[in-house]
């Protein structure tokens, strides 16, 4: 694993572990995040991403190993660390008894900011979240995308140095996701360090400079999305679908084509550097799939290769 060192490290973990009884949710992971970086935890549900995020957010005590944020220990300096973090939880926890702008004001007050400060900051953030015209409305009738943007605006009220996002776009429609990604890009460009979890490979590819792939509480790979694809996959993938209950039966027929074949319940994935050429070979062998599709390899392929499972069931 590439070691990350230097003075600009804001967040680091060594042998970080979280146990609940006998269950090891996070099983001795190492990682470090530099200032200004967008760092991701990619993995399926139950991989230990959220447990890791809760420890980093200083709301869940570390069971073992070492965790440092801004050089401080969450066990002793939790409030001081949290004052410098922004947190976007997996599920929106907006205050539905308050209006949109009151949500920002009151949340800012939880950080001990003055009324004057939170009002001017809230006005900027409403603009950033494209919610200025809804400022006086109740939260409840807002759309899912609007609520998410308000949650992100709320997390920025204390001008955090690190923004923690736990599955930021889960449950949003494609258009709302793109709006959100655009907002997160802007934040990153303004120098905010992003730490996020996701089980969407397109999100990881869109947002992350560097990521770790987690499975069963462990880190199984680390790198930039491009590095990971280069290292654990081929450039292209040929997807073949057959008229069959079990695609295993067809795996033998394509043996030797491409570098590797993965069998999924509903299709075969042929890993190759030239998808069109592989498709031609399939055709020349007289194999007739219902459909064949050539695409670029993604992080989904990396995950499949590393764990033998798909990310989203």
């Amino acid at each position, binding site marked *: 694993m590439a070691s990350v060192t230097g003075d600009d490290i804001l967040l680091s973990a060594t042998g970080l572990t979280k146990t609940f009884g006998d269950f090891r949710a996070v099983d001795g992971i190492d990682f470090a995040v530099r200032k200004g970086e967008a760092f991701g935890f990619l993995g399926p549900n139950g991989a230990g991403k959220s447990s890791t995020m809760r420890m980093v957010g200083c*709301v869940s005590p570390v069971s073992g190993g070492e965790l440092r944020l801004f050089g401080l*220990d969450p066990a*002793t300096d939790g409030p001081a660390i949290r004052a410098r973090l922004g947190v976007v939880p997996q599920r929106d*926890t907006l*205050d539905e008894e308050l209006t949109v702008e009151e949500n920002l004001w*009151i*949340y800012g007050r*939880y950080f001990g900011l003055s009324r004057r400060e939170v009002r001017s900051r809230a006005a900027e953030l409403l603009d950033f979240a494209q919610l200025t015209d809804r400022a006086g409305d109740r939260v409840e009738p807002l759309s899912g995308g609007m609520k998410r943007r308000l949650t992100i605006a709320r997390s920025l009220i204390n001008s955090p140095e690190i923004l923690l996002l736990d599955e930021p776009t889960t449950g949003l429609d494609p258009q709302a996701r793109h709006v959100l990604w655009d907002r997160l890009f802007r934040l990153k460009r303004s120098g905010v360090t992003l730490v996020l979890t996701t089980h969407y490979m397109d999100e990881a590819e869109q947002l992350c400079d560097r990521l770790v792939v987690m499975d069963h509480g462990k880190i199984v790979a680390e790198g930039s999305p491009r590095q990971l694809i280069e290292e654990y996959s081929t450039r292209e993938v040929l997807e073949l679908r057959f008229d069959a209950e079990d695609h295993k039966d067809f795996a033998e027929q394509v043996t030797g084509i491409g570098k590797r074949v993965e069998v999924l319940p509903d299709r075969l994935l042929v890993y190759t550097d030239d998808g069109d050429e592989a498709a031609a070979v399939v055709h020349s062998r007289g194999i007739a799939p219902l459909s064949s599709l050539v695409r670029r390899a993604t992080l989904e392929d990396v995950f499949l290769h590393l764990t033998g499972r798909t990310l989203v069931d």
Partner: protein
Amino acid sequence: MSATAATPSAASRLARLVPMPAGAGLARMLVERNVTSFRHGWIALVTGFAEPVFYLFSIGVGIGALVQTVRTDSGAEVGYLQFVAPALLAASAMNGAVMDSTFNVFFKLRYAKLYDSVLATPMGPRDIAVGEISWSLIRGGMYSALFLLVAAFAGAVQSWWALLALPAAVFIGFAFAAVGMFATTFMRSWVDFDYITLAIQPMFLFSATFFPLSTYPAALQWVVQLTPLYHGVALERGLMLGEVDAGIFWHVLYLVVLGALGVLGTARRLEKLLLS
């Protein structure tokens, strides 16, 4: 790394000795949040105020017309309205505190997930416990003040000591809000709220509220004297009838100790529930 684990810093060792979970001294921000929310739903103030006033007129004035006078435990002969008004003040302080610290807190804890977002800020479990209970006291204090005014107009107040009935009501609210919130942290669903009713209703009826302690069988008197509402009622009655003696101090002490234990227990439970 293992070295830091083996020799914890002085600060973390101290934190382990003190049983009170951490706070950032920001409890007032949660009060501010509740005030802001309350502005949208001020109708709740009307209902919270109306209930004890209805009791005052139906029981105090209505039943009072039949009962005429009562001999208090200190031996004085007083009108039934004057006898029952302090008890209703104590009971309303209890009810207000319990409603707020159980139903409202349960909703915020389990459904609105309010405290999850609060704990992501520098605020800690202690701030939440202190903030919510303080808010209960402020709200309960408003009800009590209004009730006292109505009671004074109805002729139920006889002594200048009654001015202290308001702070006394705040002590009652403190004890019940703190214990109520502590109990709420154990609730699994709305069904569990029947236990609250089960505890509150007999206390409301049998804490020497509507008839003096001397009318209870001797064997039951000590049971009555163990309940927190008995101490609240005795405290208010002493003040509003002007029968002030050293016993007042013990009533206050009982309520304060109960409240302090409730705050501590609440903060520890919140830490266990939300910071795992």
